[in-house]
């Protein structure tokens, strides 16, 4: 094993944590390439070497999809309560939510509003995975339902970008019921022939997958996103088998006929614009900003 020790000895630590500001150098989670932070950001947080899609902060996601300056956020003040008075070892759920609000600067795990996409008027929403794993409680369910209701009332297509671990346990049965509530709102949208495009990001699982995320008229996904109902660990424990490589990834889902298309982040907006055109969405009267 001499060659191994030699390599180790010659390795140079390029990320001296004391002198380099955090985030300047990033190691690719997939190919281990060391990337220059600003380059990664400029590339929409996609690894230039292997195309690995890093998670994109919520505000950048909105910026990526909405025409510049067109996003008008709605329901900013909708927040979850603590209907169960849920505690874990004395620690209150209410305090956990407060801490998440403070660290993320957003009210709950979902942001939605009106926007233009390539000049088409839409109701756009996206999960904030950084907020308690994008989990869906009452506030998230309410905001999505309101978004879909606006979509119906204004006859504008709805776009939802999902990234969530599923229903939020700490709000118990009320979280589970948000699946039914949002799906009921979608039923009305479908009935009225207002289009709904579902965009699946890494990861989309549990109660979010098993409701609106899987109900898109068209379902798009980013490459290699984990998408499924049960988490891989739970499945492994149940069937006592190692899961095959790529199981529950976007490519696997497309192969099994569950999603329509896999879209590179760079092409997401163009793809949405193409779909909106096909659906016959009216364009904004004042013309459009190609953004």
């Amino acid at each position, binding site marked *: 094993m001499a060659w191994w020790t030699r390599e180790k000895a010659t390795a140079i630590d390029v990320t001296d944590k004391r002198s380099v500001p955090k985030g300047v150098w990033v190691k690719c989670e997939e190919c281990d390439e060391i990337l220059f932070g600003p380059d990664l950001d400029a590339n929409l947080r996609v690894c230039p070497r292997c195309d690995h899609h890093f998670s994109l902060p919520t505000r950048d996601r909105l910026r990526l999809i909405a025409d510049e300056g067109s996003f008008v956020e709605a329901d900013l003040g909708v*927040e979850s309560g603590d209907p169960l008075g849920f505690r874990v070892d004395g620690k209150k759920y209410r305090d956990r939510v407060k801490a998440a609000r403070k660290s993320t600067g957003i009210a709950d795990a979902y942001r939605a509003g009106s926007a233009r996409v390539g000049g088409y008027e839409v109701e756009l929403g996206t999960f904030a995975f950084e907020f308690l794993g994008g989990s869906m409680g009452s506030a998230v369910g309410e905001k999505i339902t309101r978004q879909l209701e606006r979509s119906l009332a204004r006859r504008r297509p709805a776009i939802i970008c999902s990234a969530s671990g599923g229903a939020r346990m700490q709000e*118990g049965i009320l979280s589970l019921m948000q699946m039914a509530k949002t799906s009921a709102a979608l039923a009305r949208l479908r009935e009225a022939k207002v289009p709904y495009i579902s965009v699946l990001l890494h990861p989309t699982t549990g109660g979010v997958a098993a409701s609106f995320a899987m109900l898109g008229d068209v379902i798009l996904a980013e490459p290699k996103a984990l998408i499924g109902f*049960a988490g891989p660990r739970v499945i492994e424990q149940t069937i006592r088998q190692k899961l095959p490589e790529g199981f529950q990834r976007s490519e696997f889902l497309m192969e099994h006929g569950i999603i329509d298309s896999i879209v590179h982040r760079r092409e997401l907006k163009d793809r949405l614009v193409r779909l909106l055109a096909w659906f016959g969405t009216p364009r904004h009267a004042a013309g459009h900003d190609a953004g």
Partner: protein
Amino acid sequence: MSPASTAPVYDRQILEFERPVVELERKIQELKQISTASIDFGDEIRRLEKKARRLQVEIFAELSPWQKVQLSRHPLRPYLLDYVPVLFDDFLELHGDRAFADDASIVGGLARFGAREVLVLGHQKGRNTRENVHRNFGMSRPEGYRKALRLMHLAARFGRPILTFIDTPGAYPGLGAEERGQAEAIAKNLEVMAGLPVPIVATVIGEGGSGGALALGVGDRVLMLEYAIYSVISPEGCASILWKDQSKVATAAEELKLTAPDLVRLGICDEVVPEGEGGAHRDLEGTARNLRATLDRQLDLLVGLAPSELTDRRYRKLRAIGVCEERAVS
């Protein structure tokens, strides 16, 4: 107080908190057997019977949420197919999703309920290992939800009310289930059930386990048997994720607020159906009688409504679920 079945009750079929009552009952049985014309234990038997009954009432008055979870999963608890012959006439089971398979963890069929033709649909667990292999412990795969969907569309086309019965640990977390679109199958049921133009009454008769339960649970009324539970996640799953400690199941069960009275308070359950004394497994007839009366009364309130009125009300009911705070944002 008669047990649901006349088969002998094995020790492993008795929950810890049921044991004092069961032991008294065994003693009573013994006394009855050794009673002869010359030695009469009549007084002693009557005394013990009174005591057993009092003890049972005391124990059941103070059940913890975790004990109710155990009751909802009791090995002797009546399953859908135990209720069907008691509640319905001329049940005709219909099989399969017309695409992949017949998932035996969900049973569906045509039946007459009193004077009404209805669709019966529900989860089915097995009573022993062989049955459980067949029924997959009541954990459904996509083809199960799709069979349910097919039958619900059928009921809607012919104007027949839908009665669903929920009793599942949850959707099956398996490889094939994911390959065949477990999430989509559940989601589709939620969407379609929200808009079906016929009355839907969903009753949780045992375990209401997460998405797999909800996939048969969207309706005009949600009823729960007294010791049924309904939860976003099992207490075991919750304990291992939030407490990182499997021994905290009882605490998790408490925090999750998953009992029938909890769900009434949270505005999810419309009515709790009382079980017979000692739980449904000790009084199938009594429990079924209460269930029949409640289902009949609830259906009476729904069958006269115009389809659009029915679906509007259903939407408003779902729409109102959740507890949010709304802050003014300047």
